[in-house]
C-alpha cells in the first residue's frame, strides 16, 4: 500500500493506493492523524487506486470523519471503485460519508485553512 499527499488550492488530498486491511490500515490512520494535526480542517481522500478495503480501513475513515466533524471541517471521499463502493453501500455508510465522483466535485465548496 502507498500513501501520497498532494495539495490543491491549499486543500490536502490523501491518495491511497493498494489494499487497505488490518495490516495496512494503521499506516493510513497515522497519516490522517498527522495531516489533521497540522491544522488541516478539511481532507479529501482519493480512493481510485484502492483495490480492496476491509472494516479496519472503513473504521479509519470513520474516525477521520469524526475528527473533521468535531473541527467543523469536511472529509470527502472520491473516485471509489465498484468493490469499495459495494462495502460503503452495503454497510449504508454511503449515506454517512460525503462521496464524490471526481476531484473537482470533491473540491467544490471546500475552503482551504
Amino acid at each position, binding site marked *: 500500500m502507498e500513501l501520497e499527499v498532494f495539495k490543491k488550492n491549499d486543500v490536502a488530498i490523501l491518495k491511497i493506493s493498494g489494499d487497505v486491511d488490518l495490516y495496512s490500515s494503521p499506516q493510513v490512520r497515522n497519516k490522517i492523524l498527522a495531516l489533521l494535526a497540522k491544522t488541516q480542517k478539511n481532507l479529501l481522500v482519493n480512493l481510485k487506486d484502492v483495490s480492496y478495503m476491509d*472494516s479496519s480501513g472503513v473504521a479509519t475513515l470513520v474516525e477521520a470523519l469524526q475528527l473533521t466533524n468535531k473541527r467543523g471541517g469536511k472529509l470527502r471521499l472520491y473516485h471509489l471503485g465498484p468493490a469499495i463502493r*459495494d*462495502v460503503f453501500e452495503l454497510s449504508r455508510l454511503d449515506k454517512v460519508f460525503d462521496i464524490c465522483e471526481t476531484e473537482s466535485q470533491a473540491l467544490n465548496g471546500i475552503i482551504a485553512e
Partner: protein
Amino acid sequence: MKSFFIPKKIVVPATADSLPRIREFITKVGKRYRLSKHEINAFKISIDEACTNIIKHGYQDNSGNIKLRVSIGVDQMIVELIDQGKSFDPNLVCEANVQDYVSSGKKGGLGIFIMRKFLDAIDYEVTSIGNILRLTKQRQQVARNRDQQHFSATFKKFKSRLFFNNYNSQMICCGEFLLLT
C-alpha cells in the same frame, strides 16, 4: 447442493500479513470457477473479516494457523475456516447500528456487520479439530446459468472425444475433466 467440484484448501499463519495471501487464494479459486467480480469481492471481504476476528479475538497474541476449505457449487459457495484459538462465535455479536457507530465513535462490530450483509448464512461450531466457521453465499442466477452452460458445453465436448460404456463413468470423468480446464 448440486456440485461438480473438489473443495480447495489452504493453511496460513494466523497473522495480519497472511490476509493478502488469503485474498489472493480466494480470487484465484473464484476466477477458476468463473465467479462474478461481485461474488469474488463479497467472499474476499467476508473471509478477510472472519480471519481478522480469528487473529484478533481467537489467537490474540498466540501463534497458530487458519485452515480454509472452499467449496463452490452451482447453487452456493461455502468457505470453512478452521482454527484452534479461543472460540469466538460472530453470531453472538449484536447487530451494529451504523449511525451510532459513526456518532459515538464505538469501535468493533463493523466487520461482522459487513459479513452479515454480504453472506446468506454464518454457522459456527466448536469441534474436536477446532472452531469451524462456515460462510455460505447463494450464487447469483446469472453466474449459475453461466456455470450450467459451461458444464453442459464442456461435457458435450468431452463426450465427443471419448467413448464410455456406461453413463456413470462419463459423469465421474466429466467432473475430473472440469477440474483440469
